[in-house]
């Protein structure tokens, strides 16, 4: 670039301006993002709207299509015990799974974040189960949970505990499902680990100079600093809980006595077992609304508990958040 070197500064900036203009230039950017736009319309937005439309129809896969207005939704809420049952199962699962998932992932990440030898090996051990397919995971756990020959009950028998037939026991099957899901928590752990590594060391140093013990440091330094990561993982976990289908299909088939009949499975069966496409679309939209509402609530509440470091450090450079009812001037 010896050429530019010779240019006077003004001319150079004029050249840059021209470049900036070209960067904005015409149809080119739309051509580049066209694949996404097309895919979005055809595989996401189109289906999303279409599923809303068919949710107002009685729409069997073959046969006559009839408009029934809110009929599907009315039936769902008033005349379908399975809807309520599966919703309750999913909520129960979420209540157990979401907090445990976060606690396990954060706990493992904190263990790994210490100065220990071979932490890469331990990290690999915790992450490995997340690499394999959900089908493989289900096959392995159905064998681990086997009532008569399973390794879990053998392990318990060492301590003199007679384990149940996990997957066929109405009391235990959902718990078994939670545990099997926790086994695949790896990515969440990695996200937490990165969050922990991002906490500046001097915060701990000054905390300990101020006389804060380990527990105090955890509560006052670690937790506030990783709240953004917790938020991200919380939302991902909630969505994952509502989408739980593979394990239900392969481990228990929704049984015993519908004890693990997840909402996603209910939806799946309505569509692909009973071929009630319209009804299943209504189920899907209801789930979508629940997930959106929960995500929105988590986000809303996050204003109270999530702490963004950037807001303090770089506050003035960023667009200031408008105060309630106020305006950004």
């Amino acid at each position, binding site marked *: 670039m010896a050429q530019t070197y010779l240019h006077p500064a003004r001319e150079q900036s004029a050249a840059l301006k021209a470049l900036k203009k070209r960067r904005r230039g015409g149809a080119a950017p739309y051509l580049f993002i066209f694949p996404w736009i097309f895919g979005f319309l055809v595989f996401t937005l189109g289906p999303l709207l279409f599923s809303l439309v068919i949710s107002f129809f009685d729409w069997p896969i073959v046969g006559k299509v009839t408009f029934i207005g809110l009929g599907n939704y009315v039936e769902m809420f008033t005349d379908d015990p399975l809807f309520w049952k599966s919703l309750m199962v999913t909520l129960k699962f979420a209540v157990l799974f979401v907090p445990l998932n976060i606690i396990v992932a954060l706990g493992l990440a904190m263990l790994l974040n210490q100065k*220990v030898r071979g932490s890469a090996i331990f990290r690999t051990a915790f992450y490995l189960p997340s690499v394999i*397919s959900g089908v493989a995971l289900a096959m392995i756990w159905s064998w681990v949970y086997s009532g008569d020959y399973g390794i879990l009950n053998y392990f318990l028998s060492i301590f003199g505990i007679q384990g149940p037939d996990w997957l066929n026991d109405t009391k235990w099957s959902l718990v078994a499902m939670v545990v099997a899901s926790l086994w695949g928590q790896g990515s969440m752990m990695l996200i937490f680990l990165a969050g922990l590594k991002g906490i500046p060391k001097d915060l701990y140093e000054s905390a300990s100079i101020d006389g804060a013990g380990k527990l105090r440091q955890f509560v006052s330094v670690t937790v506030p600093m990783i709240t953004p990561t917790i938020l991200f993982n919380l939302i991902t976990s909630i969505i994952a809980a509502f989408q739980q289908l593979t394990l239900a299909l392969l481990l228990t088939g929704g049984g015993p006595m519908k004890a693990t009949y997840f909402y996603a499975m209910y939806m799946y069966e309505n569509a692909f077992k009973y071929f009630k496409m319209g009804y299943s679309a209504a189920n899907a939209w209801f789930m979508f609304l629940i997930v959106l509402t929960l995500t929105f609530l988590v986000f809303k509440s996050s204003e109270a508990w999530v702490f963004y470091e950037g807001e303090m450090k770089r506050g003035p450079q960023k667009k200031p958040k408008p105060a309630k009812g106020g305006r950004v001037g």
Partner: protein
Amino acid sequence: MKKTLSYLALILLSLLFIAPLFWAITTALKSPQELYLFPPKWIPSVFRFSNFADAWNIQPFNLFLKNTLIVTLLSTLGQLVSCTLVAYGFARFEFKGRNLLFLIVLATMMIPWEVTMIPQYMEFNYLGWINTLKPLIVPSWFGSAYFIFLLRQFIMTLPRELDEAATIDGAGKLTVLMRVIVPLMGPSLILVAVFQMMNCWNDYLGPLIFLNDQTKYTLTLGLSQFKGMYGVDMQSIMAITCLISIPPLAIFFFAQRYIVGGIASTGIKG
């Protein structure tokens, strides 16, 4: 003292995480007689490596492997091409509606697949694509939000002076992308390829919904149908489970540092 406790916890917990995998491998090597013993034997008295070949031949797993490879390779190629183009478009141009469109890209990550699953099924049914591998491949050629986001973030970190130098030398926009940007995107493209290959190889619900005929099955679907089949014993199921887990595990070991870094970056900046 404190360190000892940490090590103890780490060792015990990692054993806990590895135990089911280990149990699957040793089960795959057992003879039928040793399968149903209580207390179970961790290590079989004879390692029956023939179990793997026997199990593989019970169903046309070679065919399933071929299908899986076709889907995995073509869809990964599709993601790489389409997401690079789109990410470049978002990262390097200023155009009307860019921020809104990018917000929509991010928002689509929140849409559960179950919501679009039924219309997609009907769409593919209308096109006559049900029971072909197309529904598992074609959408990958139109980008996916997460990868677009990932690649865009990466391109943003590359200095613009590079593009500008090439532009001054008369390179067109596509040439800049191919000659300047792509050669620098190595790590992030590997990350996309690795994630997509794993997702695709491990995918179960897609094949379950879009494929009916056994000749079209992928490996995961083949394995899932295996359970409860007449004459299929637990050691065969575990043998196939182990075999189909090898490629993702191998990819993981090969690309571990990309994966760890890649997953980490999503949570923080995301």
